């Protein structure tokens, strides 16, 4: 077998659009769906489940807008296939606020500190920070530590200064500072 055979354009064998059934927990609710194997988790969340709070920016893992929590850890939903999430526990931005609309401490901090302008990057920011807050790992609330934490999330509006403030404020509100 040639080492480079996989580089040649090839087509799947089983059907025109291979599908698989997945069962996963999203924001505490168990869902079962049939998905195309090639469906990205980001598209499954947005189009399959209509949870459009998760945003899609670059679709190649650079911008961080699509960040969700997979089994407690922040991850790019555009770099994960929905079929890979079979059995996983997914948490999206929709899990942050209470049902009556009361914002979570993290969301309140972003609002208070003006940590967003257009808001496109905010769901990814929040889920990344949420995963870090909930991990039990030590928080480094220096400017440098916070910038390191959010380094995988691009924001084109704010210049980050108010996001850094918001993370620190959120840690205070959550009793972690």
């Amino acid at each position, binding site marked *: 077998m040639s080492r480079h055979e*996989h580089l040649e354009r*090839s087509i799947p064998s089983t059907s025109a659009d291979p599908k698989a059934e997945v069962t996963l927990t999203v924001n505490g609710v168990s869902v079962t769906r049939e998905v195309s194997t090639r469906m990205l988790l980001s*598209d499954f969340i947005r189009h399959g489940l209509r949870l459009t709070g998760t945003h899609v920016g670059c*679709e*190649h*893992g650079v911008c961080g807008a699509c*960040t969700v929590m997979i089994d407690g850890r922040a991850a790019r939903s555009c770099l994960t*296939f929905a079929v890979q999430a079979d059995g996983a526990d997914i948490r999206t931005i929709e899990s942050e606020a209470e049902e009556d609309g009361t914002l979570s401490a993290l969301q309140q901090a972003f609002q208070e500190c003006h940590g967003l302008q257009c808001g496109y990057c905010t769901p990814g920011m929040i889920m990344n920070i949420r995963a870090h807050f909930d991990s039990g790992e030590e928080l480094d609330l220096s400017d440098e530590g916070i910038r390191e934490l959010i380094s*995988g999330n691009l924001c084109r509006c704010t210049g980050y200064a108010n996001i850094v403030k918001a993370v620190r404020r959120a840690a205070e509100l959550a009793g972690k500072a």
Partner: protein
Amino acid sequence: MKPPLFDYLVARSSEEAVKLLSEYPGAMILAGGQSLIPAMNFRLAAPAALIDINRISDLRRIDIVDGNVRVGAAVRHRDLEQNDAAFAANPLLRAALYHVAHVPIRNRGTTVGSLCHADAAAEMPMVLLLTGGWVTAEGPSGQRDIPAEEFFEFHMTTSREADEMIVSATFPGLPTGAGHAFAEFARRKGDYAIAAVGAIVERGADGVISSARIAACGISSRPVRLSEVEAALVDTKLSDDDIHRAGELAKQSVTAPDDAHATTAYRQHLLASLTRRVVRQAAGIMKES
């Protein structure tokens, strides 16, 4: 920006994954997917089938074997970074992993996957080469070990055969008392290195360097050992002149042409200053032997 169609196959053991590789020509192994899935989203890769190895628990193990760190093919970067036994055996792993993309990428991306992807600017292939490590390939006729020197052939090209899967990588532990350092320059934190250098230095009680291993990435078509620099450092006492000379010698290892990120001359400048920095750091943190 949507991936092309593919058959999705879940392997329950490495034997099954290898069998599926032979049965499905054009199949690729799916580990963390943090390089493969973007390549598919861009349609740069279009495998007919993906063999998902994430559910093979044997491949999620980090073992310390004879003082060496053996990392299974499904081990996430982040798990290796946070593993204290791996850090104790080889602290360079944590030092280098800090520079690999961002935490959300390291949460899913695998170290062995990064080795197999073999980007010439990636950190972990360089660390495997620097530490004298190897990968273990499993094919239809069994397993073989491939030393890092023979594994990385070119940018994104390895000596893995198409019917083989890399089941683990082994990073040797650092020699007792050896000093180590890792330094990288990238335009933004988490980007691939424009240049990065790692060093392992041993020094005798008389202050004379008894051994030096230096390797770099981002400067050539694959990770490279800086053999001339190593040879020039051994038997010296690391005077300022010795360290200056090491940096000058490092420049000749740059073969990357001018590209969008840097000119060759700029990479030579970076490599020289990073080499001087890691040599100083590795010597400075060295324990008395």
